């Protein structure tokens, strides 16, 4: 008898989702779906609000990466007041960048230590009561303390810049409302109140080394688990270096051939379209030139390692080169390498934070806000921790928002996560007589590698648990797994 497996909720991801795996009479996988079943709200209810409210309102759609939404919206709203990124003052740009790097640093630390490391340390088949951050705390105290401290460092820097760890405010239309005071800055350099930036760099380096060691011992797993070809999308500097705050859009196919050659972010609508599916509230962005079927792209750390020519900071660049020496290719299509790529970015952000903390421009109280000629349209694109994030606003002659389009990082990874689920279903669950918890966790491991923020992706309102269901060929539910 055919059947359907349900995993609900998918655990250790930001937000909630549901997986269904449909099997035929012989237990072969027929179809798989990663459902996001939430109401989508922010694009709509931001309409009618004055433009200057957008950076503060939209960040409320997430408690993990509000800074990313704050800054993407701020870049878009800058344009509404006539300020392009090149027109922003040096101090304001550097302060925003510092905030951005602190956000990526703390978000990546959270994902690796709290969400991903239990699978790597204990194995995907470990008992669920052990396979979590409490288990890491008990058996790997040093790692857990470092993880918490790294996240704390990023959050404290966000608080110093934006007033609060979560949902604070730094950016205003055309700039920032404050600079950093010398005594605030020194807190992150002298290490008197908490571990300083040099320690963050050292620990980030250690985490990269941990991953290299893990790779040596588990190479086949990393190479093959949920590996599949796809496009990759991210932003780069004019010289091809990885750029997280303000770069040009670049995409390549699974072999490294260009599918989007370093275009201006403002032109994104010329190149991208979004498809919808009746079984998910999350959209499916794709490159128009390639088409819906093969035009979707992975975004985030794995994609960014693939699309950039180099990284501008020395330690992260060294780590990137070692990463590709191991993978033996200029394009890595293996899902599990996302973890390694994420740790290289963590190191990169630590190095960038140090550069900026030592830069006197972040202390400058002058020229924080600029004005230009008002416009009706503003587009802001940044690389959020989980990938390319687009905010697009249009306003009327009174400055009220009349249209909003958000393409959130996790949305770009929608197809990739569905492919990852299908891979696990085909390679782990198909034709198995008994479906174990460990097998189902492997579905979650595949999704988790993308660090999806499901609340962001649907601009969620309310709860979003993840559920897995197993259906027979007649559509009858014969098994399910729910985590609330």
């Amino acid at each position, binding site marked *: 008898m055919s059947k359907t497996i349900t995993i609900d*909720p998918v*655990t*250790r991801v*930001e937000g909630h989702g549901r997986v269904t795996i449909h099997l035929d009479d012989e237990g072969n996988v027929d179809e798989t779906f990663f459902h996001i079943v939430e109401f989508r709200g922010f694009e709509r209810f931001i309409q009618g609000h004055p433009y200057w409210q957008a950076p503060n309102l939209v960040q409320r759609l997430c*408690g*993990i990466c509000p800074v990313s939404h704050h800054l993407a919206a701020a870049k878009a709203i800058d344009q509404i007041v006539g300020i392009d990124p090149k027109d922003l003052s040096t101090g304001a740009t550097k302060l925003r960048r510092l905030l951005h790097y602190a956000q990526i640093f703390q978000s990546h630390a*959270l994902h690796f230590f*709290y*969400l991903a490391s239990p699978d790597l340390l204990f194995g995907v088949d470990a008992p669920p*009561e052990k396979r*979590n*951050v*409490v*288990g890491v*705390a*008990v058996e790997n*105290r040093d790692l*857990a*303390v470092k993880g*918490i*401290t790294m*996240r*704390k460092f990023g*959050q404290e820097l966000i608080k110093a810049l934006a007033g609060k760890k979560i949902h604070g405010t730094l950016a205003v239309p055309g700039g920032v409302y404050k600079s950093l005071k010398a005594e605030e800055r020194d807190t992150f350099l002298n290490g008197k109140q908490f571990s300083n930036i040099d320690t963050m760099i050292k620990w980030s380096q250690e985490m990269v080394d941990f991953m290299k060691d893990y790779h040596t011992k588990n190479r086949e797993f990393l190479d093959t688990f949920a590996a599949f070809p796809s496009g990759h999308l991210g932003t780069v500097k004019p010289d091809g270096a990885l750029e997280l705050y303000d770069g040009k859009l670049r995409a390549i196919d699974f072999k490294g051939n260009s599918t989007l050659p370093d275009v201006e972010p403002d032109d994104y609508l010329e190149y991208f379209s979004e498809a919808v599916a009746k079984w998910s509230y999350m959209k499916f962005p794709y490159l128009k030139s390639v088409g819906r079927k093969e035009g979707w792209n992975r975004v985030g750390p794995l994609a960014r390692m693939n699309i950039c020519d180099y990284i501008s900071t020395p330690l992260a660049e060294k780590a990137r080169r070692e990463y590709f020496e191991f993978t033996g290719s200029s394009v890595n299509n293996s899902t599990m390498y996302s973890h390694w790529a994420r740790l290289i970015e963590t190191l990169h952000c630590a190095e960038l934070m140090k550069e900026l903390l030592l830069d006197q421009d972040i202390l400058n109280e002058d020229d924080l806000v600029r004005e230009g000629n008002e416009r009706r349209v503003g587009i802001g694109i940044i690389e959020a921790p989980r990938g390319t994030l687009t905010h697009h606003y249009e306003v009327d002659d009174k400055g009220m928002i009349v249209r909003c389009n958000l393409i959130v990082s996790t949305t770009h990874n929608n197809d990739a996560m569905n492919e990852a689920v299908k891979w696990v279903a085909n390679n782990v669950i198909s034709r198995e007589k008994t479906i174990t918890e460990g097998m189902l966790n492997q579905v979650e491991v595949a999704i988790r590698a993308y660090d999806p923020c499901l609340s962001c992706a649907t601009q969620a309102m309310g709860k979003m648990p993840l559920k897995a269901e197993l259906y027979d060929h007649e559509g009858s539910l014969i098994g399910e797994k729910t*985590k609330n």
Partner: protein
Amino acid sequence: MRTLLIGIGNGSRGDDALGWLFLNEIEEKDPQKFDMEYRYQLQVEDADMISQYERVLFVDATEELIPKGFAIKKCEPARSYYFSSHVQSPETVLYLCKTLYRTAPEAFVIAIKGYRWELGEPLSNEASEHLEKALKLFRTSELYKQTQVKEIQTEELF
């Protein structure tokens, strides 16, 4: 005794504001007495924060039926884990604190009964009464007087 009050809840969701309102009242009447933190949910890194204190009081609204409308309970470390990264129980945070930092503050949970939780709703009259009672009794308790008592049993609080 260095004491931290942690209010847990959401000021925009009806009676879920009880934890924050409790802290607001304490802050207004006696602003220097306690360190205070406001949280939507407890998170893993809160273990680091509470490790700096000798005593921690978690104040939260509850759906559970409580005879007096509020209760003060001793909080003990417990190894449990919620699947999300950003919702942990006071017991788990205390457990993480003890495991990671080799110390655990004396901890209590102040639970106040609430009734409605929807976005934009005001505090219910019943919850408001429970809040007043909880504040009144808390202010007469040993916890409020900041005694140096190392171990306070729940029944000795009032």
